């Protein structure tokens, strides 16, 4: 042990340790080069677009770019300064510019997000902007007394910086109060958090129904002989492979007022001609159709876990005197927990972000948060849509991280 061992070298005389390290580095680089093209592609077609979209949720230059003079005044004077004649002169100059460039609507839209019913204030004053004479304060106040309100000035000061948290405030049903503090909007205007809550509750309900329906058939598939279970498996996989729109169409055909299910019920005399049940274009429709679409995602992980459970444990429990219920509850069920966890998390993650089915069969009360994002997109409320997307994305990524920790994404299987 006292002798220092001679340094091990490779045939060309390099220290073995260094040679090994460089060989390993080369192997790592080689592996990475194989992944690099795809990674680059995903960065450009997935990560950058989403990042850019999220940037919109904190950036809106609708006011700051159309009112440069006033923005400069705000930058020069600290918050709390009473708007003086210089401020009103800057405002008048900006309004005249807005009239020329027809951008009063853009500026008004930005202010309207924080103070409602201010649209006409901007558009109407801008229309007469070039007729305004100094002193501008009196001239503008004569045009509309609202120009003197501190709320408007506060909103304009906030909007003069294109970076803002306003859209996240709106998306969480909050607003800046008159004193600048953050407060909740009145009860009857709180829609976003409520819809987030509803989306999560409905997704939870759908996940639960999927679990209840998937458990028996996964168990049957796992305990049948291979040949039979492979045949029955087709009944699970076929819906999985069938177009989403086809399945949604089929459910409309089955469930609508003059549809197959109602007709059967009427012809059996179970309901009257005028008692046809509304099962589609409402929340019930969303739940039924989404359950059907997501069910295979629950059956497959449950099945692959149940296949590995040895029947001898259950037999041992029975031979030791346990009833069949106790055997199920104490022996079988705990062993299926990994499958339940994997399936439930996957179904929940997919359900939270669902768009197509609620849009087609949800009617008025079966809409989820994705549909609201689309609604704001179609109304060009892009920053608000981006803020809502950002919140949904954070929720989904947390669940995804949980899935990776508990199940591992490399355990994800398809069919």
């Amino acid at each position: 042990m006292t002798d220092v061992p001679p340094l091990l070298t490779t045939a060309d005389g390099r220290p073995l340790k260094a040679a090994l390290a460089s060989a390993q580095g080369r192997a790592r680089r080689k592996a990475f080069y194989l992944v690099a093209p795809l990674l680059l592609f995903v960065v450009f077609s997935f990560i950058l677009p989403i990042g850019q979209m999220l940037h919109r949720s904190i950036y809106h230059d609708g006011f700051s770019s159309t009112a440069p003079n006033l923005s400069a005044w705000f930058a020069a004077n600290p918050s709390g300064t009473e708007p003086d004649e210089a401020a009103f002169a800057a405002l008048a100059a900006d309004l005249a510019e807005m009239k020329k460039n027809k951008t009063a609507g853009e500026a008004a839209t930005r202010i309207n997000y924080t103070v409602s019913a201010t649209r006409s204030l901007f558009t109407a004053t801008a229309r007469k902007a070039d007729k305004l004479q100094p002193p501008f304060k009196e001239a503008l106040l004569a045009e509309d007394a609202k120009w003197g309100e501190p709320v408007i000035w506060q909103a304009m000061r906030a909007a003069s910086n294109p970076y803002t948290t306003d859209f996240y405030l709106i998306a969480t049903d909050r607003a800046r109060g008159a004193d600048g503090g953050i407060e909740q909007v009145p009860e009857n205007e709180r829609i976003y958090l409520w819809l987030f809550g509803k989306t999560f509750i409905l997704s939870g309900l759908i996940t639960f129904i999927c679990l209840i329906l998937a458990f028996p058939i996964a168990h049957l598939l796992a305990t049948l002989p291979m040949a039979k279970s492979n045949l029955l498996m087709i009944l699970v996989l076929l819906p999985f492979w069938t177009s989403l729109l086809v399945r949604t169409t089929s459910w409309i055909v089955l469930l609508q007022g003059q549809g197959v299910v109602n007709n059967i019920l009427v012809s059996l005399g179970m309901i009257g001609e005028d008692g046809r049940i509304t099962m589609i274009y409402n929340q019930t429709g969303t739940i039924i159709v989404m359950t059907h679409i997501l069910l295979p995602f629950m059956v497959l992980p449950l099945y692959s876990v149940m296949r590995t459970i040895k029947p001898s444990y259950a037999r041992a429990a029975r031979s030791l005197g346990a009833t069949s219920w106790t055997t199920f509850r104490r022996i079988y069920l705990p062993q299926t927990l990994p499958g339940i966890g994997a399936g439930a998390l996957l179904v929940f993650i997919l359900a939270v972000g669902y768009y197509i089915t609620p849009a087609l069969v949800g009617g008025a009360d079966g809409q989820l948060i994705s549909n609201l994002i689309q609604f704001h997109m179609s109304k060009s409320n892009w920053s608000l849509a981006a803020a809502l997307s950002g919140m949904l994305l954070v929720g989904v990524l947390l669940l995804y991280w949980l899935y990776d920790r508990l199940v591992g994404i490399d355990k994800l299987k398809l069919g």
Partner: protein
Amino acid sequence: MALPVYADPLERVWYYTYHAICVAIFVFLIAPILIVMPLSFNAEPYFTFTTKMLTFDPSGYSLRWYDLLLTFGMVAPDAARDSSWWADVWQNATWVRAAKNSVIIGFWSTILATSLGTLAALGLARPEMPYRRLIMAVLISPMIVPIIIIATGLFFFYSSPCGIVGMDCGRLTSTYTGVVMAHATLGIPFVIITVTATLIGFDQSLSRAAASLGASPSRTFFKVVLPLILPGVVSGALFAFVTSFDEVVAVLFIAGPEQQTIPRQMWNGIREQISPAILSVATILVLISIALLATVELLRRRSERIRGVTPQ
């Protein structure tokens, strides 16, 4: 699962109840898919079985909705059905054009997703791969992130002419390239998952053996690795194709009138005026998915046989 001989009466009752429940759930799964088939042959413009259909009266059935798929959108649908009529169908019929678009977009996005995805899966399967877990999570995430978020992001990204890069390469909205890129992104997770699963059973010493015998890396890949992982690659490609073939939200956001696909056309049909023509499209799509499912199942068994994995 046979009923054990020692089962008591209660267990016997439960045994039959349990099987009845299972049958009901299987009916729930499969009935909606099968119900559209007979209804697509309805002679009347209804979505329910007419009395004539229930009594199997031939006059209750017709091919009119399939015919409508060809004639809808044509310039001269009532002309004599000669070669110029068929040329008209090929050029102008709405559903035929949608089908052509679906196939073109599906084909190119599958090629893109499968080639890049297979290469990446080979890298990810190497034990030396750095940040393996993180990169895998990123590559699978297009499957997890809500489609509305992806579509919204792509809409903005494609509308600004290559905004972030600062290059002028034109807008990608309303182009085939844009839709193909979006669909390829959505198909990538499926390719990664299936190919990675195949590579788990792949014996790395085979490629080392090929290298020791003097084969170049590309020769090793095409002669040794690819034939062995081909079933996984093909089923990944099929998944990617189906993903593109069934995708509607990205098309809604970024495609123009020239890139209308079958799902986009169905979306219109369901939202605006639902006609039984939709059911005939649905029937054709179900038949396609049955064919694809059969192919994937055969491939899976073949892959298990090649790799010597006994089916469990």
